[in-house]
Each structure stands twice: as structure tokens, then as C-alpha cells.
């Protein structure tokens, strides 16, 4: 019984902990669309958020599992090379299919 109570207590974290997701705010910096292969699992894709959030030039990212798309919002006047993005996506466990600079 004690064990079950502990587990239920832990479960609350599962149910009420939410990831930091980019909201639909307006950004002044560049926006990049990165299409990747293998992006099927939310839990594994957390690595993308963790790796990109360490980059000073990145304002935020948004992950779209349906389209296997990662949207990267850069800070104003900041750049991020395609080589660096490729390296970070590889470190996250995925492979890049295509990168588009949309803004």
C-alpha cells in the first residue's frame, strides 16, 4: 500500500509536468524550418529542446511530430549555421532531411 501511494505521488509529475513549448508569440529574429527523419517519439525528442536551449542565439524551438518538423526561432540579429544545426540534430539522435530559412 505504501509503495502504491509513493507511485501515485510520482505519477502526479507525469500528469502535471509540462514541457516548455514555444507559444505563438511574434519573433523578430530568423525562423528556420528543419525537417528530420526519425522524429517519432515525444519523450526522445526532449533532447532537441535541451540541446537547442543551450544555444545563446536560439530564442525558442517548436517540435511538430506530425510533420517531423522542428521550428527554430533565432534571437534578433543572431545566426546559426546549417553545419551547427546539423551537428545539434545529430546529437539529439536524428538526421536532417531538409532545412528551410523562412524568415
Amino acid at each position: 500500500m505504501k509503495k502504491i501511494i509513493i507511485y501515485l505521488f510520482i505519477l502526479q509529475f507525469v500528469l502535471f509536468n509540462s514541457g516548455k513549448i514555444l507559444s505563438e508569440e511574434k519573433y523578430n529574429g530568423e525562423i528556420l524550418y528543419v525537417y528530420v527523419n526519425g522524429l517519432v517519439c515525444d519523450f526522445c525528442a526532449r533532447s532537441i529542446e535541451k540541446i537547442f536551449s543551450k544555444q545563446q542565439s536560439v530564442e525558442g524551438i517548436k517540435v511538430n511530430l506530425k510533420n517531423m518538423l522542428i521550428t527554430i526561432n533565432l534571437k534578433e540579429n543572431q545566426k546559426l549555421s546549417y553545419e551547427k544545426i546539423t551537428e545539434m540534430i545529430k546529437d539529439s539522435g536524428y538526421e536532417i532531411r531538409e532545412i528551410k530559412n523562412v524568415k
Partner: protein
Amino acid sequence: MKIFLCKILLVCTFIVVKDMNARPISYPGGWTLMQANDFSKHSFHLHYSPSIDYSIGYRAEYWREKEWQFHGLQLNYLIKRINRPKSQTNLYLRNGLGLATSNYKAFENKFEPSLFTGILFDWEDRRFFTSYQNQANYASSIDKFFSQRIRIGVAPYLAEYGYLHTWIMLQADHMPGNRKNLTFTPMLRVFKGDYLAEFGLNNYKDFMFNFIKRF
């Protein structure tokens, strides 16, 4: 032992609350805490991933039937990953080296070197999941055995990033030599954010609970 493991789990959860994954290897610089309980054992694994190819960490196990413990280092290595437009496949090698200890029957504070090795294969897309893993454990007098596990799963709905994800799974465990040498466990996997939990009940009515937190 069970209470001890639960305490470790809780302490780690609260002390290092920040960020989590089901893979035995995380992203470079990432920590993962994995805690599992089923009919055969309780285990605790905390690992650090220096790169995307391997992780290293502490592993503790308590084997219920023969009442012995393992404490040691575990090394997980990614042999191959295949990223496809709509799926991902992984093959890992898992090795552990440490000490086995037991007070069971004739074993009075017996300590001896112990090791294990095995592979883990998984394939998944957004709707279906399957995995296979095996493991050979060796502790010269305390216990030696081979075990294997298969899982198949289906997601009843496709959730987007950041929402609660749910998987319905069936797990089959084969442990030759164990009193319950073949078990089937219908189970539920849920995850949200950096937390993952699994619940199940096998055909012997043994409760299963696994928990993972990625930092």
C-alpha cells in the same frame, strides 16, 4: 531493499528536478534515472551520456526469487540507429560489471564479482512499437541465468509534442530456470514532458511499475 530503492528514487527525483527518455542513452551531457519493479526484480539505474553513442552509470538490482543484490557500473552502447522519415530503429549493447551480494540460504554475507551483458532492439513509429531485449547474468555461485523480453505496443491516439502520450503494450518475459519462467504483462505506458511511467499486471497477478526521468 524495496523501501531503500524507493527512497533513492524519491531523493533523486526531488534533488535533480530539471529535465528526462526511454532510451538507455540520452543526449550528450544528459542524465537519466530509470527505476523498474516487476515479478523478478527491483532495479535502479542512473546514467550519464557523454555522447550520443554511449552512456555510463550506476546500477542496483534486487532479485526477488533468490534474494540477491547487484551493485555496479553499467555501460550502454548504441550499435546502430536507423532514422527513417516515419520511424526509428535502435540496437544497443548493455554491459554491467560489479558485485553480487546475498544472505539467501547458505549464502551468509556472500560477496562476489558479477557481470551481465545483453542487447536491446527497438523499432517504433508514431502508432506502433516493438522491442526485444536479452540479458545473460553471471555471478559464479549466487546466480547465473539468461532472460529475454519482447514488447509490442500501440498508441490509441497520436498526441502532439508536449501533451500526454499513452501506449497500450503487451510484454512477454522468458526466464528459463525461474519459477515463473514465462510471463505476459499487459501494460500501459504514459509520458509527458521529461517523465515516463509504465504500469502493468502479469498473468500471475504481479504488479509492474517502471519510472524514468530524464534530466
